[in-house]
């Protein structure tokens, strides 16, 4: 039997090789009169099954259930409608959690490694070798001055000669002494001193 034209055209678009093949079925035809007798056979079998339903093995398999349901279960069954206000928990697959856990562990490990390596560099800069080289490069004078500075700075400041004199003056000069000094100075000199304005000071300052 030749293929329909639309089937042949479609095949030509896809594959020339398959389009050239025959669509004949190579199987040997069933015994003669098979199709003539088949309707009678099938009706006899249907009749047998209707008389003895156990013969319809496949049909029974589909319908029969080995499980028992408690009496009145479906009459009393009420579906539980979930409350919309209650947010249902989100199910997170374990694989995703594991992925994040591994990522977090890696980040943590990298951070610790980075911190440690940074500390190691700092320690290296103060290593004994570096310190020894540094000490050798310092001159003895500088070393002595450093030690003296350090010794002086460690003792509380001593009063200097000038400050000593000031403190002595402040203690020893009293009102009577000041009156005697002022009596010795002529009044004209005092008044001229007092009359001096700031401009003179500025000139002096300049």
């Amino acid at each position, binding site marked *: 039997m030749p*293929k*329909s034209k*639309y*089937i042949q055209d479609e*095949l030509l678009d*896809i*594959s020339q*090789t*398959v389009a050239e*093949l*025959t*669509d*004949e*079925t*190579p*199987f*040997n035809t*069933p015994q003669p009169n098979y*199709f003539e007798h*088949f*309707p009678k*056979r*099938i*009706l006899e*079998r*249907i009749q047998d*099954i209707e008389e003895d339903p156990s013969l*319809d093995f*496949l*049909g029974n398999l589909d319908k029969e259930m080995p499980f028992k349901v408690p009496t009145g279960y479906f009459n009393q069954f009420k579906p539980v409608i979930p409350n919309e206000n209650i947010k249902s928990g989100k199910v997170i697959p374990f694989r995703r959690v594991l992925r994040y856990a591994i990522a977090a562990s890696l980040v943590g490990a990298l951070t610790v490694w980075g911190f440690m390596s940074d500390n190691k560099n700092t320690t290296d800069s103060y290593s004994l070798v570096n310190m020894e080289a540094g000490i050798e490069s310092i001159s003895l004078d500088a070393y002595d001055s450093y030690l003296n500075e350090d010794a002086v700075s460690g003792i509380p400041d001593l009063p200097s000669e000038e400050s000593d004199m000031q403190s002595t003056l402040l203690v020893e000069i009293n009102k009577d002494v000041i009156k005697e000094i002022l009596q010795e100075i002529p009044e004209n000199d005092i008044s001229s001193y007092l009359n001096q304005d700031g401009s003179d000071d500025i000139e002096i300052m300049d």
Partner: protein
Amino acid sequence: MPEGHPNDDIELVSLFKSNQDREKVFTLIVKKYQEKLYWQIRRIVITHEDADDVLQNVFIKAWNALQNFREDARLYTWLYRIAVNESLSHLEQQKRKSSISFDLVSESMENKLIAEKGFDEQKAMWKLQLAIQQLPEKQRIVFNLRYFEAMTYEDMSQVLETSVGALKASYHHAVKKIEEFIINR
């Protein structure tokens, strides 16, 4: 084209449902579709004995379900759907009985072909059958329905409950695989 006349089928179903001479009406349905269904089943299960068993199961199921058959459905595609499902169930049962993998099932089907009377690998029609057995299950059925039955994609869509686009793609892949098999064998 093996498409039944819709009006005839509607009338037959209507008569069957009215309980007027059900056996006579059913005989007409069997006579109309038995040969087409037989060959469709035979191409899937290969041997006559298996095809005969499956064909009987198809019509027994049809007898039991025809009373509740929807008026808007088509008898032709409905019977084909039962035939395809029963054929696949039959293969599945055989696979379970022998506990063999998909590859071995394919090999087993090839052996069944080789055991068929008059098998000749040099003949193109046998080579085509061997090539069809290498296809995945779904592609095999799509190819058979289209190539041998000249079924439209729309009807096939009802039989296999698959979109027309997916069926066209499936047929295209099947033809390409068969071409490769034929050229390389």
